[in-house]
């Protein structure tokens, strides 16, 4: 039962043996949660809630949960589930720093050897004229179109370097440089008309980029299949089985 797990998490006394179907226990759990964990209701409301045998208890509770922001739910147990979740969230926020320290990424970071203490790039001023000029020069050297925002130009430059100037790529360019036959995309049917030649041209270019994305995805899918085939494939033929019909 997730109710009990939540109660355990919140350190509710004897959480394992609690019977939530019992009306009185239910009421006392609500009171305990408000008093020890949520601590959101005014004193007067808390006092009324604490009066477990009161005839008006339900009315008070109903207003209390609405004030917490509990949505309309099917049963009282579902409402309790929601309130428990709310309480856990409050606890979590309170001790956020503790939990974050245990998050997977951070644990990984901690275990990784700490090599570079200082990254010289951290001290760069990306908005300085010097930086912009440098990037421009780099882009020109690589035949890349310059974008007004030097950071975007840098991204493009990075792509060019990663895709075309990696050591293996420089040594075996045939493996990386795509050889294709040109396709007159200007004449191809776009499939729709935006009634503006410039927009149509832009849409066609987007189509091309999309098709390239799809191609890369399909190539990756094919590579995956080939990898699996290296484990499973075992084609057999047996000519003795063959029989020509009439």
């Amino acid at each position, binding site marked *: 039962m997730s109710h009990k797990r939540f109660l355990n998490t919140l350190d509710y006394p004897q959480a394992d043996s609690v019977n939530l179907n019992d009306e009185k226990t239910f009421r006392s759990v609500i009171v305990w949660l408000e008093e020890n964990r949520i601590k959101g209701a005014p004193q007067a409301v808390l006092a009324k809630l604490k009066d477990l045998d009161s005839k008006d208890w339900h009315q008070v509770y109903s207003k209390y949960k609405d004030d917490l922001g509990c949505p309309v739910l099917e049963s009282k147990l579902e409402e309790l589930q929601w309130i428990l979740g709310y309480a856990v969230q409050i606890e979590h926020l309170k001790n956020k720093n503790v939990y974050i320290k245990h998050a997977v990424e951070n644990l990984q970071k901690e275990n990784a050897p700490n090599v570079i203490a200082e990254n010289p790039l951290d001290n760069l001023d990306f908005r300085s004229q010097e930086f912009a000029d440098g990037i421009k020069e780099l882009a020109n050297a690589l035949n890349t179109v310059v974008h007004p925002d030097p950071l975007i130009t840098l991204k493009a430059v990075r792509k060019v370097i990663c895709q075309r100037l990696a050591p293996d790529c420089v040594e075996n360019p045939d493996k990386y440089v795509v050889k294709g*036959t040109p*396709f*007159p*995309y200007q004449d*191809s*049917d*776009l*499939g729709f008309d935006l009634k503006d030649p410039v927009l149509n041209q832009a849409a066609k270019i987007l*189509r091309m980029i999309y*098709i390239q994305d*799809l*191609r890369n995805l*399909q190539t990756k*899918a*094919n*590579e995956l*299949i*080939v990898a*699996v*085939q290296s484990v*499973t*494939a*075992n*084609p*057999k*033929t*047996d*000519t003795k*089985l*063959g*029989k*020509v*019909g*009439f």
Partner: protein
Amino acid sequence: MVVRQYQQELEYLERLSPYCWKIKKGFQPNMNVEGIFYVNQTLEKLMFEELKNACRPGMAGGFLPGVKQIANVAALPGIVGRSIGLPDVHSGYGFAIGNMAAFDMNNPESIVSPGGVGFDINCGVRLLRTSLMESDVLPIKEQLAQSLFDHIPVGVGSKGIIPMNAKDLEEALEMGMDWSLREGYIWAEDKEHCEEYGRMLNADPSKVSTRAKKRGLPQLGTLGAGNHYAEIQVVEEIFDKWAAGKMGIEEKGQVCVMIHSGSRGFGHQVATDALVQMEKAMKRDDIETNDRQLACARINSQEGQDYLKAMAAAANFAWVNRSSMTFLCRQAFAKQFGLAPDDLDMHVIYDVSHNIAKVEEHIVDGVPKTLLVHRKGSTRAFPPHHPLIPVDYQLTGQPVLIGGTMGTCSYVLTGTEQGMMETFGSTCHGAGRALSRAKSRRNLDYTDVLRKLESTGITIRVASPKLVMEEAPESYKNVTDVVDTCHAAGISKKCIKLRPIAVIKG
């Protein structure tokens, strides 16, 4: 049924354009939508002659003429748009072969009909390219044809050379080409260039009778008989240089291999089993049709769902079958040329199904609708940018493979936007019969047919020469007429013409 004179019948037919005729409501009783058929002048004559013959007194029995069948399909519950006859249309069981019809999935009355798929479920065509030229192949053409013939068993009752047991078959029925991939018979790129990626996901082998499985098991990897064949072809003409380039066809004389086959006895048994079930369902649900052969069931009924699941399994069977033959073809070529199939660049250009029912999205009268599209003797032809066609063909439109008759030419077309709007993205599938099998046997002599083929320089290996006249070019409509009509009507576009240099068949 109403009996009318030929002249009276003609009043229901109206020419819409030089390539297309409308069949008005009332031509057959209870038509929900109009019919339409695409023909050129030559094919038009054949169509009308067939109708005229049927109007002569005492001509009852046999199949109804194609036009009548198109109109009867227009009377089926739930049909949307129009009942469409493609240029190669000819009479078949219930539905004419070359008839496509779409049914609204959201209409509870809509039906699925095995007659609208055909007995050879997922019969289709696959085209492999090679990097070879005609001059490379001609010196060893005979040996190559013999090698193909040795690898791919043909004919009625033939058995395949890929060992399979009952468990393999169950898996193959569920997985389609993924099974062939897993077992290593084909390449990853083959799946990419196949309709539905070679696997119908709703296949359920438990809906298939044991009898069908027993018939199917030994037949995997066999070509079968009838109009099925494997041909070595050369590119004779390129109409669309760019689209052909995308398919890896660069110049005239390039060698290709075409495989035309289906689901063999397996699909036939699935269809037969379903027809029995459907007759019961029709009685129960009070479904009325103009023709007993149009047995059908509501899509949402148990029978309808069972059929769709079994049909999908048969479709998967056919894909595995064509994949196995692809494997065997590659082996045969590799042996003859002493090169690996990859070095011969033996890639699948595409694989089409021309006997199948599929759930597709289409725009009907401006509204997007989910339809169950029956294509019997009709090929899907989706336009450029359609999400269901491979990425390599996004700019050209889906390749449509049109197998000609034995010894004549074949074509590759591409899908068009106009076809998408007019015919639910469908086009013709082949030549289409002009003479019935019996008539061909009576009128033609098999030695003449074989001699004629030889004189045109085509090597032929055939399991049953005495049946070869059934498949003689004379028994069929001219595939060029058929393709030209589709091109002129704009429902698909000519791309490549291929001519056979060697044929193997049942």
